[in-house]
């Protein structure tokens, strides 16, 4: 009972949105065709699940998200750590990240499609590029701020360079690494949907565009609701992983 109340208070802003939404529909401020009631949207969302349309498209999107995200993590974390250790590497790579950061990288997507086609390859590459930035930058700044005493203590105990790197610098940077990963994962999901909306034959973004062609807003909004739900679950997932790996904070 108490828990349910707490939950209600925590998510009360959502309730206001729902109430406002239903009010707009009830007072017929906008035509129903453009602004369907939430219950209608939820019914369609449920249909998308039962007819298997969600199951047909969601795994493809998730595959692209995880592939691009994982690739960015595997490349980005060591790169960020190495940049903080090597002035040469930092001088070489830092300008790419400082200059590349404000570029709307999705603008490069048509070029990627031209090279890699409309399938998963171009999308995974796009997600990889997009995720690389927050992961590298957070890892880099985090590891430059690791207390030198940890590194000195490790050297004092006879650790060699690679032991200091993997067994001290990496865990000590873990909190910052997760900051980067937590920014990158929702971005990966957004870019997956966006690139699927631009051109694809499957995936949640494709489903969304396909539905909007029907000109029935409840179908589009049902897709949005499902996408939001999946995005929320992804966020929960990475928080759980973070608690497992950054347990000391």
């Amino acid at each position, binding site marked *: 009972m108490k828990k349910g109340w707490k939950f209600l208070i925590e998510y009360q802003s959502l309730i206001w949105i729902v109430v406002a939404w239903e009010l707009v529909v009830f007072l017929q401020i906008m035509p129903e065709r453009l602004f369907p009631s939430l219950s209608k949207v939820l019914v369609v969302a449920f249909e998308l699940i039962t007819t298997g349309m969600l199951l047909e498209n969601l795994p493809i999107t998730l595959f692209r998200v995880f592939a691009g995200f994982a690739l960015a993590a595997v490349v980005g974390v060591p790169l960020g750590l190495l940049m903080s250790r090597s002035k040469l590497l930092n001088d070489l790579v830092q300008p790419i990240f400082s200059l590349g950061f404000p570029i709307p990288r999705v603008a490069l997507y048509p070029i990627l499609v031209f090279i890699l086609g409309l399938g998963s390859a171009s999308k995974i590459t796009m997600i990889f590029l997009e995720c690389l930035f927050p992961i590298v930058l957070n890892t880099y700044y985090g590891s430059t701020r690791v*207390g030198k*005493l*940890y590194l*000195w*203590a*490790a*050297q*004092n*105990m*006879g*650790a060699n360079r690679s*032991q200091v790197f993997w*067994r*001290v610098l990496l*865990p*000590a940077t*873990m909190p910052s690494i997760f900051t980067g990963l937590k920014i990158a994962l929702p971005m990966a999901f957004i870019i997956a949907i966006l690139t699927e909306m631009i051109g694809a034959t499957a995936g949640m973004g494709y489903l969304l565009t396909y539905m909007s062609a029907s000109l029935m807003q409840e179908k589009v909004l049902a897709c949005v609701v499902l996408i939001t739900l999946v995005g929320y679950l992804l966020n929960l997932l990475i928080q759980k992983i973070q608690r497992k790996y950054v*347990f*000391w*904070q």
Partner: protein
Amino acid sequence: MENKTPAIEIEKLGKVYTRGKEEVTAIQEISLKIPEGKFVSIVGPSGCGKSTFLHIVGGFIPKSSGKVRIRGKEVDKPGPDRGMMFQESALFPWKNVFDNVAWGLEIQGMEKSKRDEIVEHYLKLVNLWDFRKNLPSELSGGMKQRISLARVLAFNPDVLLMDEPFGALDAQTREKMQVELQRIWQESNKSVMFVTHDIDEAVFLSDIVVVFSGRPAVVKEIIEIDFQRPRTLDVHKTQEFMDIRNHIWDLLHQEQGTSDEEGM
């Protein structure tokens, strides 16, 4: 005794920083011998470069000139022959107490059963065996420094280097730690180089107190202290203790006087 190789030998050590275009001499030229098994403190006015000096001996920062020898062997990089204890806890926050103490031994490739035995011995020596499964963040400042001491002793260095290890503790914990350290040091029989700005602490703990001058640092005086061991905190009340204390205070005070004048 005199002819034995000293545990730590410092020969004409100097340190010059470049700050922008300026060259700043932090350490003029220091030569010092620390005999095997002795507890030696270094005191000096704050900012005199005594911590820098210790970090150079530890091999953490490069020296500009001179030599550092540990048991006759020249060193210029950090290594497990010198166990370093810092002012702040350098315990790894992601490892529990046991694994922190075991870390150095694991790195050096010691097998697990032997490692566990040593860790148990030293955690019991510092009376914190019951806390072996806790994370450092769950311990008080004094406990963390005792764990740090256990971690350093566990990999059995030739000498101990201590950089104001109790500097961040409150006065009462500090006195307790000094008594603890004396007990543990007497059991381990290691040579210690201990940096502090606290004169009482230096006199209470040491066989020899080395007084540094203000920047650039040189050795101003070396004072031998021969109260019987184990010393109790009551030694603070004796006339001899106060005489030595006041003498060192005067030495440091002269220093601060001159540097104040420089400032004006």
